[in-house]
């Protein structure tokens, strides 16, 4: 569950938490696009470092590290698969360039995880819903999304209780071969799914009894407004996209192996 921990929002106040979620989301998209544009390690490293000030300003280093640790397994996997594929396709030789490109692919993944984790760590589910709504996403969808996010920790806790209950009936999750182990999770997954469905039905009834969808146009207690910081981040976003596209189109991006061996 450590990956989820890295995405769990905790209410604190910092300049980053107070930014408009829409601008923060644009930032995530910009980083996403930039990370896809470059396959070389240097620009990806720059992107990785760029999010660090956000993490420090928001004071979420610990949670951020935890989300990276959660991604470590998948990152290692990506690295190994990349190495292996270049190893087998290039006639069983391992070059510095292929190691570097595998590292770059891994870094690309890490950058994506990093930017998403910063976004979710510093944006409350309520803010997110508000942002979706004010971006003209239909309220039904916005609500479904925020509810889903909010129920992740609830489900994680429930999964723990279910595992305890089944262990108390002699279930050993870590026993047997890989197939047996997967099958071991059936007694955990079924109650989890059943209770999630039951819970959603109950939630729907509770919502309807509180006049869900009574009027076409809802009013909000809070409204999102752009402040100075939001404009600043927006400018950063625009500049970042412009620089990324310019560099990609007109400048050669050296790889490390080219820098050091040529």
């Amino acid at each position, binding site marked *: 569950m450590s990956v989820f921990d890295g995405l769990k929002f905790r209410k604190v106040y910092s300049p980053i938490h107070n930014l408009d979620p829409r601008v923060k989301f644009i930032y995530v998209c910009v980083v996403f696009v930039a990370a896809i544009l470059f396959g070389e390690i240097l620009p990806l490293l720059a992107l990785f470092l760029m999010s660090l000030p956000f993490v420090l300003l928001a004071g979420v280093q610990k949670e951020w590290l935890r989300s990276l640790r959660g991604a470590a397994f998948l990152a290692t996997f990506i690295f190994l698969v990349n190495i292996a594929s270049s190893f087998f396709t290039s006639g069983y030789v391992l070059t510095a360039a292929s190691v570097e490109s595998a590292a770059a692919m891994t870094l690309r993944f890490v950058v994506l995880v990093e930017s998403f984790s910063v976004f979710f760590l510093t944006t409350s589910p309520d803010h997110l819903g508000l942002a979706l709504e004010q971006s003209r996403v239909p309220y039904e969808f916005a609500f479904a999304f925020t509810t889903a996010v909010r129920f992740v920790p609830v489900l994680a806790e429930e999964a723990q*209780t*279910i595992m305890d209950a089944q262990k108390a009936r*002699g279930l050993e999750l870590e026993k047997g071969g890989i197939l047996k182990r997967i099958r071991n999770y059936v007694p955990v997954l079924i109650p989890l799914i059943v209770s999630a469905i*039951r819970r959603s039905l109950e939630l729907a009834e509770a919502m309807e009894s509180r006049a869900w969808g009574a009027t076409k146009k809802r009013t909000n207690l809070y409204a999102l407004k752009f402040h100075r910081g939001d404009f600043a981040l927006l400018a950063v976003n625009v500049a970042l996209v412009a620089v990324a596209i310019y560099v990609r189109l007109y400048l050669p991006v050296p790889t490390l192996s080219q820098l050091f061996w040529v």
Partner: protein
Amino acid sequence: MIEVEDVNFVYPNRVEALRDVSLVIKDGEFVAIMGQNGAGKTTLVKHFNGLLKPSKGVVRVDGVETTKTSVAALSRNTGFVFQNPDNQLFSETVEEEIAFALKNFGFEEEVIKKRISWALNLLGLTQYRETSPFLLSGGERKRVALASVLSWNPKTLILDEPTIGQDYQQKEKLRQFIVQMQAQGKTVIIVTHDVEFVAECSPRVLLMKEGRIVADGEGREILTTPEVLAQSSIVLPQIAQIFMKLAPLGLPKNVIDVYEAKEMVLKTLEKRRK
């Protein structure tokens, strides 16, 4: 026998759920653990089958430290019925649900069949043998969960909030069932808020507050001492409340059982008439 020595337990989110808890539960005892929400009741009993291991201190079950064995091994002797049956029901039929634990513990096919019939009969579920547990009512699901644990005949039975969602008649059946378990020499441990239920069973009562055991003794004594109950925000049982007021008439204060109360009131009234 369950021995708990100076146990502290801290959850990963740094909540201190148990503080310096020590106690001994002997074989064949009937214990009710009471206290407010968050007092540490469920955390304590989860130590008895190894689901939780103490952060500090030692828990021994029949002489074996819980840290040195597995939950599955401990569960063979210590059955734990969770509060919410929906946290464990997953099979297509009630029969398979009960067979689950028996298969996990490696019982033979024929023994499994016998045990299922025995457990179903014990809890009045025989007619639901082929029914899906999801189609049963809340109270019935609770009984299926109980049957699924009883099936392997554990020596100790832990029931977490067994009376929640049960009507009076079911509670009475549950009480009789516990008496029956007692007669077979089993240890029964219940975690509950239900003062009236405990009053009618009169077990040994452990009162918890903020992770500590604040009172430990006969139910009849603890449940009739308002000062002790007040620290755990528990209200006196109704019978005890009445007998507090009747004390000036020469009746004893420590009565909690309905049957006993009835006898006493009748006797006093009889005397007065003469």
